[in-house]
């Protein structure tokens, strides 16, 4: 202990800036915290934050970190939803985000529900879907509550094929649907004939071809693809160009066609190769596997879910179990495709924020200067966002290095305490849907999660540990 007398110590200054200036003046090595009252200075929140600054919380979070860093998501099979998720059936659709009633659903989610109902042959139009809901013949369940994830509206119905991703180091499994591409697609709320036809083709052709190819290839570990793609300029949320081609490089050689005509096989190959977001769903399932492995750890303040349904933004926290904490979803700052404008954008939607929950997407902005362009910001802004996200996360995961930051690991493990402490909400890169049902994609954007979800979660933590 007396060794600190022996060398010139390095000091971290927290508080009066004049002390930091003095340390520099006297020639000491010093760094500083730009201190602000935690919890925005709200005494109630400070009380909980103070009670969570303990060894027990540290230990619980260590356990959580160990769980999500050691989890090893592997793509093992593809099956129809009804074969693998008991919660999804002829009367129940899965959807993105926290629970939401038909009445409160936003345009794009309604559109996707209508499209899925048409795809399943349950209805012909919006009116018939409303009738099904009213007569309780159709209900909804959040994907996250049945181990699934889907981008944007994320609607999963029983006859949709799902990727099955298993944790080879554990027992948990996650499911995700196939990515349809961009433009008029179900997940953005479009349900025209071309949308339904594409879904049917995906089930009848792409599904059996991919299933067979995967079987020949064998289980496909997803972490290496993600890590490699990150080093090739993907942030794995709005940009999955590299990961998609890496995936195709793995699976492609095993595509034999499963008895389909050569033209269908080429079309399948091309469908994946030309859909730069094809791997997104797999990355999401991998993210879901990693975060689920760290959920339900008593005392942990790890945020395991960030997700939105187009109306509400919801989060889950490891130590608080299955409970959702919700707040109104904000509208992303959007770069619009030609023909769309401010005012067309729907509030934030999709399970895809599981990427940010895992340290990718906006958190890994610095790995993907190209995305900074897409979301309308500069490369230095991308770097700033990644740096800022280190402030609210537990670790720098060196398994996912960012080349531009001297191979520093991505910021992973969102700590509820740090969000409130620094009043910094997570950033999310996202696709943006038209606010009306049936319209589809309007652009890409960036959004910050609403603080209210985190405030609510912290207050619940206060109740759970008896600090409030």
């Amino acid at each position, binding site marked *: 202990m007396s060794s*600190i007398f022996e060398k010139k110590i390095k000091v971290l200054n927290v*508080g*009066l800036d004049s*002390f930091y200036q003095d340390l520099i003046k006297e020639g000491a090595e010093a760094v500083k915290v730009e201190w602000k009252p935690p919890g925005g200075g709200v005494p109630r929140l400070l009380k909980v934050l103070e009670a969570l600054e303990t060894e027990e919380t540290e230990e619980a979070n260590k356990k959580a970190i160990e769980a999500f860093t050691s989890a*090893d998501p592997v793509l093992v099979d593809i099956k129809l939803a009804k074969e693998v998720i008991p919660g999804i059936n002829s009367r129940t659709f899965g959807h993105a985000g926290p629970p939401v009633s038909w009445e409160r659903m936003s345009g794009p989610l309604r559109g996707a529900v209508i499209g899925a109902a048409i795809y399943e042959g349950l209805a012909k139009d919006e009116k018939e879907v409303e009738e099904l809901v009213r007569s309780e013949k159709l209900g909804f369940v959040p994907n996250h509550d049945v181990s699934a994830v889907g981008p944007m509206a994320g609607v999963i119905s029983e006859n949709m094929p799902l990727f099955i991703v298993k944790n080879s180091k554990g027992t948990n499994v996650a499911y995700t649907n196939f990515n349809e591409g961009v433009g008029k697609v179900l997940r953005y709320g479009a349900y025209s004939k071309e949308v339904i036809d594409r879904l049917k083709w995906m089930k009848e052709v792409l599904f059996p071809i991919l299933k067979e190819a995967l079987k020949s290839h064998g289980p496909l570990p997803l972490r290496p693809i993600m890590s490699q793609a990150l080093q090739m300029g993907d942030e794995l949320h709005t940009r999955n160009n590299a990961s998609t081609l890496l995936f195709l490089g793995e699976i492609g050689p095993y595509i034999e066609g499963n008895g389909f005509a050569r033209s269908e096989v080429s079309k399948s190959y091309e469908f994946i190769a030309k859909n730069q977001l094809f791997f997104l769903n797999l990355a999401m399932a991998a993210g879901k596997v990693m975060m689920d492995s760290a959920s339900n750890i008593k005392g942990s303040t790890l945020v395991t879910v960030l997700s939105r349904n187009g109306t509400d933004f919801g989060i889950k926290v490891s130590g608080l179990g299955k409970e959702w904490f919700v707040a109104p979803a904000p509208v992303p700052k959007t770069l619009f495709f030609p023909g769309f404008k401010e005012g067309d954008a729907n509030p934030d939607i999709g399970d895809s924020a599981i990427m940010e929950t895992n340290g990718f997407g906006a958190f890994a902005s610095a790995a993907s200067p190209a995305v900074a362009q897409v979301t309308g910001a500069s490369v230095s802004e991308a770097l700033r966002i990644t740096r800022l996200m280190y402030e609210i996360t537990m670790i720098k995961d060196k398994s996912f290095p960012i080349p531009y930051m001297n191979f520093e690991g991505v910021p992973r493990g969102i700590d509820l305490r740090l969000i409130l402490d620094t009043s910094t909400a997570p950033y999310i890169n996202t696709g943006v849907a038209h606010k009306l049902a049936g319209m589809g994609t309007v652009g890409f954007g960036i959004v910050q999660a609403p603080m209210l979800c985190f405030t609510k979660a912290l207050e619940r933590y206060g109740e759970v540990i008896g600090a409030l």
Partner: protein
Amino acid sequence: MGKKFTLVLNNEYRDSVFLMRINELVEKADGVTRAAVMMGTEANKDLMKEAGLYTEEASKAGPNDLVIVIEGEDEDLVKKALEYAKKLVYKTEKEEKETAQSYLSIRSAVSFESDIDLVLISTPGEYAYREAMRALLLNKHVMVFSSNVPLEKEKVLKNYAKTKNLLVMGPDAGTAIIGSVGLGFFNVVKEGPVGVVGAAGTGIQVVTSLLDLAGTGITAAIGTGSNDVKEDIGGITLKTGINMLSSHPKTKAITIISKPPSEKIVNETVDVLSKINKPAVMNFIGFKGKDISNTIKFADTLEDAARISFNFTNRGEFKLPEWTSETEVKEAKDKLTSKQYYIRGLFSGGTICYETQYIMSKKGIKAYSNSPLDKDYEIGGFDSSRKDTVIDMGAEEFVRGIPHPMIDFRFRKERLLKEVEDKEVAVILFDIVLGYGANMNPASEMADAIKKARSLNDKVSFVASVIGTENDPQGLKTQVEQLKDVGVFVYPSSTRATQVALEIAKR
């Protein structure tokens, strides 16, 4: 050909350029004849085969597994090299430093700069506990400058720190010098053989400055915070500090400075000191115990504390600079009218104010104060004086909303002008504290007020202690000169300044 050892990192992708660089570094490591660091693709396996670096384990690796094969004679060295290679895989080159690196919380700061030794906390008191606890959880020593931290929380912090072998200075610790780095309010003191532990901030500044002026110096100064010696806390940091200094080879003697604690704490301190092997002197201002032995002593005043610790560690004579001659003082005394006999003290240092009362009381003079030695002499209301009065202008009622009087002189100057209007006043006694944290030219502030005061009353004397060293940013000499230029009698020790004031005002 040497033995080959293999390490496979499953599902850990790095590109080939990155791995070739590691390969090159590992081949240069001790005991390594050759190495292969590559992903386990078929093509790479062929390369390993050709190189004769293909192993059973490598053959089992898949294209997504990172394979490290090292050949060498000495198994221990090769194993070390494997560890080294693994480290390189996960290593991040330190980013180029920005000039004012800052973070939003202690957590991110420590995560990026793990070599931080100590966290200095000066947030408002209600937030300080949490920040301090967090620093301790991250295994960092802590100094809490903030005051108004509840005692029970201070106790939690200090007990927890003890289990982790960490030092908690404060809450309410104003001064420390650790590892030759000054923290909070401090003077630039030479390195030397004396280790200081204290619960009295300005007391530490006085003693460390005097040691410097006497030609010696310190190894460290540990500020425990003013509440540490209260029985609720039980002197946890005081005892930890003593033990740290006792196990520190360069520390040859220990000096303890505090306002008087309870007898229990005094006894416990003596116990701790008896168990260690270094001479020590205690100065519990206003509490003169009987020396325990030739090497465990009590000092009566701050200057005594400095002298005794000097004598423990130095051969020569303890000598302080003399800035004011005895003749000057005598002339001033002769000038006084028969009705001038009160002393008015205006202090920025709480310890100095306290010590002044103690020295006066030994001469039979009880002074009124806002921080009285004797409760019956509580001044009550802080804007007027009566008879002999000494005021701690750093007390809470004075600093609400304005900076500490070591920095901001406006109240002291106003008060000084008010005091000289009282024709019964003989001496205005005050302190000037130099060093970091203090006003950059305090003497000129006081000199301005004194010039004005002299025009109102040319009979009153001004006596000052200037606490500081030649290396302080203000420069000791120029500060003393400015005061002497306006006729102030200036002393390097608060003890001596009080004694001179008493001599002038002798009735």
